[in-house]
């Protein structure tokens, strides 16, 4: 990296003194059928050279729109007023040609979804070179050479070859690296990153955040990082601005905001994040309701309808952003900041106090020792392989994808098992095999003692009553043409419930998941994501199952909504004595909800056990890396943490490494003497007991604290 730094001007060469970006009283509105949408309403902020500003808020809070306004990339229907000064120069009112000379040269942007951010028909190298050619008079060869250097800088191995690849040949993380390479190509003074890690796996998220820090170091640029996840920016941002309904509702130094939040919304956001580093059951704060419609905002504080501290005075006028605690840096828009300041608790604890969140009770069945409880789901050495075929007419098998390579676990009554791992590790395949209930290619699946290989169609149908599923995408998993009533009633109709019983049970289920039975005649389109996920849960519970399989049930939801759904799941578990198989890539959520956790890597379970034991004393290097990649929403802790960065992406499951499958990315393996390395390469490590209810599959397993 030392050689690469030479390509950039020295970071200190700030062209103008003062802030790089100064936004004053920015308003953005769009026309819509129900009136003008006022997406941004009087936003002011600044970014100093080399500073990292985090903008946080739920979807629809105006955070992306305000940064697109800076880039001049809003559609022409948008009405923009106020002032956006970049290095002292006003950007509002400049035409496209003028702005295009600044875009990509002085201000660059990293977008949320790396899968669609690159043009599919041009090579990655060409697209990076284009960013240079647009702004500089250099030869095509020089630009191509520089593109390769940039790819190398952002950590793409074998950059010369990879520059010739098309975007679809890159993984999500690599594409985001390529987009960052493009963003730093012209040594910009400001980089705007709009949810740069939201679409990525945790391990890749850590890599990309690290890379953004590197990018900041080599270019010396100011960075605006937009996110809905307070954890992501804790260790990275210098200052933070929280947005709600198109306005800044709190801003200040990152430490102040995390420790002394002074606006109930910020408190709610902090309290809604499940913490990886909290052992005992933590109460999650759900922010009730939805963000207000931006077409006709009520007078008064827009957060008032969702605020636990609301008083009559809140409805009279919208509170302005005022300095709090006598600090010039820290400001909040709430008339009751002093009262919040008066509470003794800090950060998330204050949120729990103010929002009155509670921890769900343990289910009664959990008091019986685990060994004595019934096994609800048992997997014994489950194998699933897919053939790779070649040829159109005469198909011949040229390889095998070992999607699930022999995994075993069991789930007992009233217990939650979290199944975690990166995308492509075989989580979904495992899930599909369980739901299929067919005879597996190898091994055995048993539900409540019945083996799937021995059941006939009739028995299989009966088993399905005991096992239901909630899917990841609440938008896609409900038929848009069925009313909610029909959605929830369908499983009961299929299983021959009587009409009366169905009519009695559907409203009951609605109440159970916290929705009003009056809404039963509505269609899914009229509900928000969180509500739809509740409907999905109601449908899953219709047949009174013993086991609910949850496939990333909250990963598509905003954090504040996510907290509500997690709380609901915990409450249901305790009320109904359910067992959950909870598939997720977010380890914080798993720590919060699961009793036991199984970590998958390339079709194998590499570590499994009681959740506190695995999280606090992880034995397998992969688990350690996964855990260290999860950001903790605590700036002080976060800055002190040491990250274990995994190199590269998951190897192809068609061609897994010999011996230990993780060895190609393993930091422990790399540090071993050759004779021990040989053991990793030649012998597949068996799953061995490390502690009570804690197994790991590593030859050299040792505890490493990473939280």
């Amino acid at each position, binding site marked *: 990296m030392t050689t690469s730094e030479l390509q950039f001007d020295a970071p200190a060469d700030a062209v103008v003194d003062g802030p790089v970006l100064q936004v004053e009283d920015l308003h953005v509105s769009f026309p819509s059928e129900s009136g003008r949408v006022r997406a941004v309403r009087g936003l002011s902020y600044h970014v100093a050279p080399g500073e990292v500003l985090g903008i946080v808020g739920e979807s629809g809070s105006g955070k992306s729109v305000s940064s697109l306004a800076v880039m001049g990339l809003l559609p022409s229907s948008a009405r923009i007023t106020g002032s956006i000064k970049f290095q002292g120069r006003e950007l509002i009112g400049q035409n*496209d040609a003028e702005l*295009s000379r600044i875009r990509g040269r002085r201000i660059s942007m990293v977008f949320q979804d790396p899968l669609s951010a690159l043009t599919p*028909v*041009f090579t990655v190298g060409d697209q990076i070179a*284009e*960013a240079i050619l647009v702004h500089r008079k250099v030869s095509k060869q020089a630009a191509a050479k520089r593109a390769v250097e940039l790819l190398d800088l952002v950590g793409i191995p074998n950059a010369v070859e990879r520059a010739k690849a098309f975007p679809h040949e890159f993984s999500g993380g690599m594409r985001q690296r390529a987009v960052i390479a493009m963003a730093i190509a012209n040594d910009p003074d400001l980089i705007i990153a709009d949810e740069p890690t939201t679409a990525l796996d945790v391990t890749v998220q850590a890599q990309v955040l690290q890379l953004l820090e590197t990018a900041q170091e080599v270019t010396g640029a100011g960075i605006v990082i937009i996110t809905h996840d307070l954890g992501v920016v804790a260790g990275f941002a210098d200052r933070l601005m929280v947005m709600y309904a198109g306005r800044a509702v709190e801003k200040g130094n990152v430490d102040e905001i995390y420790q002394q939040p002074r606006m109930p919304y910020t408190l709610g956001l902090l309290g809604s994040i499940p913490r990886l580093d909290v052992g005992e059951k933590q109460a999650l704060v759900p922010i009730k309701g939805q963000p207000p419609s931006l077409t006709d905002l009520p007078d008064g504080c827009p957060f008032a309808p969702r605020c636990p501290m609301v008083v009559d005075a809140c409805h009279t006028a919208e509170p302005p952003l005022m300095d709090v605690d006598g600090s010039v840096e820290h400001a909040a828009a709430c008339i009751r900041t002093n009262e919040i300041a008066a509470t003794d608790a800090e950060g998330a604890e204050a949120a729990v106090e103010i929002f009155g969140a509670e921890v769900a009770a343990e289910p009664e069945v959990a008091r019986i020792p685990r060994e004595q409880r019934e096994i609800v789901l048992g997997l014994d050495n489950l194998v699933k392989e897919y053939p790779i075929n070649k040829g159109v007419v005469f198909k011949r098998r040229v390889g095998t994808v070992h999607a699930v390579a022999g995994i075993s676990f069991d789930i007992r009554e009233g217990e939650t098992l979290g199944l975690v791992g990166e995308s492509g590790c075989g989580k979904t395949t495992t899930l599909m095999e369980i739901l299929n209930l067919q005879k597996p290619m190898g091994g055995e699946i048993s539900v409540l003692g019945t083996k799937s290989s021995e059941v006939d169609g009739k028995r299989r149908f009966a088993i399905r009553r005991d096992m239901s599923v909630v899917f990841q995408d609440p938008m896609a998993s409900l038929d848009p043409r069925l009313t909610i009533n029909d959605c929830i009633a369908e499983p009961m109709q299929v299983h021959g419930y009587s009409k009366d019983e169905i009519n009695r049970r559907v409203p009951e289920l609605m109440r159970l998941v916290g929705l009003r039975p009056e809404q039963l005649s509505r269609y899914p389109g009229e509900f928000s994501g969180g509500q739809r996920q509740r409907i999905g849960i109601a449908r899953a519970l219709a047949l009174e199952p013993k086991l609910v399989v949850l496939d990333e049930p909250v990963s598509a939801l905003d954090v504040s909504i996510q907290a509500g759904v997690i709380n609901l799941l915990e409450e249901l578990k305790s009320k109904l004595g359910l067992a959950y198989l909870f598939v997720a890539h977010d380890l914080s959520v798993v720590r919060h909800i699961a009793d036991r956790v199984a970590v998958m890597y390339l079709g194998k379970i590499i570590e499994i056990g009681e959740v506190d034991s695995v999280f606090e004393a992880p034995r397998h290097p992969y688990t350690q890396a996964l855990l260290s990649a999860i950001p903790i929403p605590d700036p002080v802790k976060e800055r002190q943490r040491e990250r274990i960065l995994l190199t590269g992406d998951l190897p192809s499951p068609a061609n897994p490494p010999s011996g230990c499958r993780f060895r190609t990315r393993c930091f422990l393996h790399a540090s071993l003497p050759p004779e021990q390395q040989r053991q990793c390469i030649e012998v597949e490590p068996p799953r061995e007991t490390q502690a009570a209810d804690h197994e790991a599959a590593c030859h050299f397993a040792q505890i490493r604290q990473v939280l």
Partner: protein
Amino acid sequence: MAGFLLRRLVNYVVLALVATFLAFTLASATFDPIGVLQQRNPPPPAASIEAKKRDLHLDQPIPQRFVTWMGGVVQGDFGRTIADRPITDELGRRIGVSLRLFLLGITIGILFGVLLGVVSAIRQYKFSDYFATLFSFILLSTPVFVLGTLLKMGAQGINDSIGTNVLIFVGETTPGFQGNWFEHLGDRLQHLVVPTLAIALGQIAYYSRYQRSSMLDVLGSDFLRTAQAKGLTRRKALFKHGLRTALIPMATLFAFGFGLLVVGGTFTERIFGWFGMGDWLVTGISAQDTNITATVTLFVAVCVLFSGWLADVLYAALDPRIRVN
């Protein structure tokens, strides 16, 4: 890649054979050329009818007739018409006439259709978009024989106002025209303008609708925003990144549009008196001539399959994601 396309081509030969066989069988089973002959007044002598039957191989079973005919086709002999003229002689000329007419019409149709579609998409819900939409719908709902006639009238009007016959709309060339190659070219161009317009207008309307919607899909895409964020102006991003991607789904449409039009242009050919393939098919059927019908069918099959092949090639050229290793 080349191997893949070659294999495709081999598959297509089989398909073309099947299509031609079916057409040949159907035509042979339904046509009754001898009946037509017998109805002549005065009726031809029985001996010559017998001779005709033998000439047309009507004494053989249909599959055998097909094999006989196909045997000739392989050697470049497409048999004879009922009027006992070699088909091969006429085939080349007619293909030439059809291709001249339609290649130009379609090329113009594609170019302007894409352009109109892109402009419509970029200026969605503006006046020009509404205008283009109206123009397209009117043209799409006008049958080609109405459009052809209207164009003829328009051309006549222009000729009258100028005072000379600049635009000629009957036939593909002036019979007995004398002059050097350059004057010949001019004469052909004069004949070409109006019928080409008749084809191109419909094609423009058709393609512009598809191009508009495929461009609209791309307009909201993230990569277009990325391109602008790099510093490309909106216009440049739209054409370099947007249009290039929006053309991919059009490839199939272009290819098959060409394949089908070459033979679907019967009306156009008839209206403007061009003796191309479409015209020939009608002639063949009305004369109850199996050989002409089968020959034209074979040509259609080849056109359609070639279009499919062309679509594959175009796709591979436009979209790196589907390139086969």
